[in-house]
């Protein structure tokens, strides 16, 4: 366990180093000077001298390992920054300041996290419920009209991109019928839990549809396999009701691999549901990531990347631990 945590921390450093390298080394290989880099963070009318001052202020003139060292030191011990308006202390863990807006990254991220968590967890609940239920029914009625219809919809679900289904549902249900909240409603500003859910309903459904489609197919395949196992025959031979045979014996076995993938999917989404957040203008981590990348704002990119990586690593850990809980054969070995 301790070994895994240490491994996770090392992995986070590697991730950040890679992002750092891509940001600084790739433009330099392309022949860009330090001033070219800095010119992105000043006004259009700025002169060469001003740009050079900015490059010095952002630390671009230092060797790259010094810059990386500063970044790591900020996380471990905190850092002081001076963007012209006096020295500001950024306590550990400090992910630095935006090159462009000079806002500290971490508070921004923490501010946006609840939106992403709301979106991801609600959608996860919906897709797990919907996808698994649909998959089980499809498997039990294999070849029926129900099976073929749902699998057709599922195929459409995994093929259609969020920005298509999202915009389509927005135009129908929000702007056409007025049933759901229009895009851009921040769920964290909601006054009641009911309002919170109302604002998130369409993003939830849109995001859940994509995953539910995949989970339905996965569950169906798993159920078709487990329902042919010998222990299902044994369960029937005991005289169990068919419902118990399906749920307690069939689904219980089919659920194990689904749980694994679910953990990883959820971890991935907590690092930002980029397409959904962008489509519905939700101020979450994903939207922040898009801004960071389009603005070439390294500290923000690094912050988002590290947060996302941390979620995936934690999800992996949790899944491994869970696996031992759900499959006793893993526990033994």
């Amino acid at each position, binding site marked *: 366990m301790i070994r895994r945590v240490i491994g996770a921390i090392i992995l986070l450093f590697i991730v950040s180093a890679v992002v750092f390298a891509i940001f600084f080394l790739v433009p330099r290989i392309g022949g860009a000077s330090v001033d070219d880099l800095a010119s992105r963070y000043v006004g259009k009318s700025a002169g060469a001298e001003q740009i050079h001052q900015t490059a010095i202020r952002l630390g671009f003139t230092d060797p790259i390992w010094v810059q990386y060292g500063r970044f790591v030191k900020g996380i471990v011990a905190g850092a002081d920054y001076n963007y012209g308006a006096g020295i500001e202390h950024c306590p550990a863990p400090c992910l630095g300041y935006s090159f462009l807006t000079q806002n500290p990254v971490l508070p921004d991220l923490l501010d946006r996290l609840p939106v992403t968590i709301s979106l991801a967890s609600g959608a996860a609940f919906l897709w797990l419920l919907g996808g698994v239920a649909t998959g089980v029914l499809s498997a039990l009625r294999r070849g029926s009209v129900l099976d073929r219809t749902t699998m057709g919809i599922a195929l459409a679900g995994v093929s259609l991109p969020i920005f298509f289904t999202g915009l389509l549902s927005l135009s129908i249900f929000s702007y056409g019928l007025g049933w759901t909240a229009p895009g851009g409603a921040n769920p964290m500003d909601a006054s009641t839990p009911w309002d919170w859910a109302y604002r998130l309903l369409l993003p939830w459904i849109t995001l859940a549809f994509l995953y539910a489609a995949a989970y339905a197919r996965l569950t169906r395949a798993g159920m078709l396999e487990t329902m042919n*196992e*010998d*222990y299902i*025959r*044994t*369960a*029937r*031979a*005991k*005289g*169990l*009701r*068919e419902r118990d045979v399906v749920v*307690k*014996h069939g689904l*219980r*076995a089919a659920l*194990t691999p689904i749980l694994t993938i679910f953990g990883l999917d959820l971890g991935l989404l907590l690092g930002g549901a980029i397409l959904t957040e962008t489509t519905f203008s939700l101020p979450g981590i994903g939207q922040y990531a898009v801004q960071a990348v389009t603005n070439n704002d390294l500290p923000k990119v690094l912050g988002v990347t590290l947060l996302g990586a941390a979620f995936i690593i934690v999800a992996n850990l949790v899944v491994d631990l869970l696996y031992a809980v*759900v*499959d*006793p*054969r893993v526990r*033994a070995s």
Partner: protein
Amino acid sequence: MTSTVDRARFDSLSPVEGLGGLGRPPADAFLSVRDLQVHFPTDDGLVRSVDGLSFDVARGRTLGIVGESGSGKSVTSMSVMGLHKPGTVRMSGSILLDGQELVGADSDTVRALRGKRMAMIFQDPLSAMHPFYTVGHQIVEAYRVHHNVSRAVAYKHAIDMLGRVGIPQPRSRVDDYPHQFSGGMRQRAMIAMALSCDPELLIADEPTTALDVTVQAQILDLIRDLQAEFSSAVILITHDLGVVAELADDILVMYAGRAVEYSAAEQIFERPQQPYTWGLLASMPRMDRARTERLRPIPGTPPSLITVPSGCPFHPRCAYADLTEGLSRTQRPPFREVLADHHIACHLTSAQRRDIWDNEIRETL
């Protein structure tokens, strides 16, 4: 309980075809199968897995059903248990469990009998037990389906059952998972599970095939002892004549979904009447034979159950089919009583069979 309605149904069937040559079920039969047909429609054609099978099992007796793979042994046991997937199978004939008709019975009715009055042990105990539940949990589940008792009571019963099938320290082993048991222990646990509701009919489908040879005898002994204790009717399904020799009171030999010979075990071993049975016995290794003597396999392979050979399904492989003046090729041999309580399906006359037995078979077996 024997219902008069079901008895009347037998009287309406014709004595030869309807009763599969066996006549009305004897009074002491707990399970009576008559002219059972189990067919599976598939894309390739109709699979006649069981085609006119009849037998009886009484309480306290063991019937061994013997045959090659694909002879319909397992399909028969699954039919008795009502375990075929509805919609995939066509069943006709009669299966009477203590006078209650199971063919065409409501699926809930059969389910209520399953596990309670009839139970089954399967071939591979590792795959037949759920890997995610403890052995105890699975026995508790089997018991509580049919008994309205608390978990604690059922758990005590599970420990008790594990002890009775010879699992050491049942109190701690009850919480183990199947993968923590050895193969023999697992089969013991399966037996404990099957017997947890004290069933009157126990079907053991190749119960020792997946086990070490050293463990096989122990499991067979256990089944024998428990049968004496519970006085249940037992059907033992196997391709291994050695296993039936050990346990069975009666033997039913199956070929291509049909019964070819049916009699008391000692009768089958001492005075077999049917060419297929002769072939089976000749292909069995014997301890009392010189090692230099070679086993004699039956030539050819079992027939497809979709295009079963005409007449006697065994005739393409039978060395004596030519003696019947073409009857074996054209007409299905009736299942008939040739000696007291000894039925066979064969066109050979009793004189021919006696002649072949005396001159060719007797000294080779």
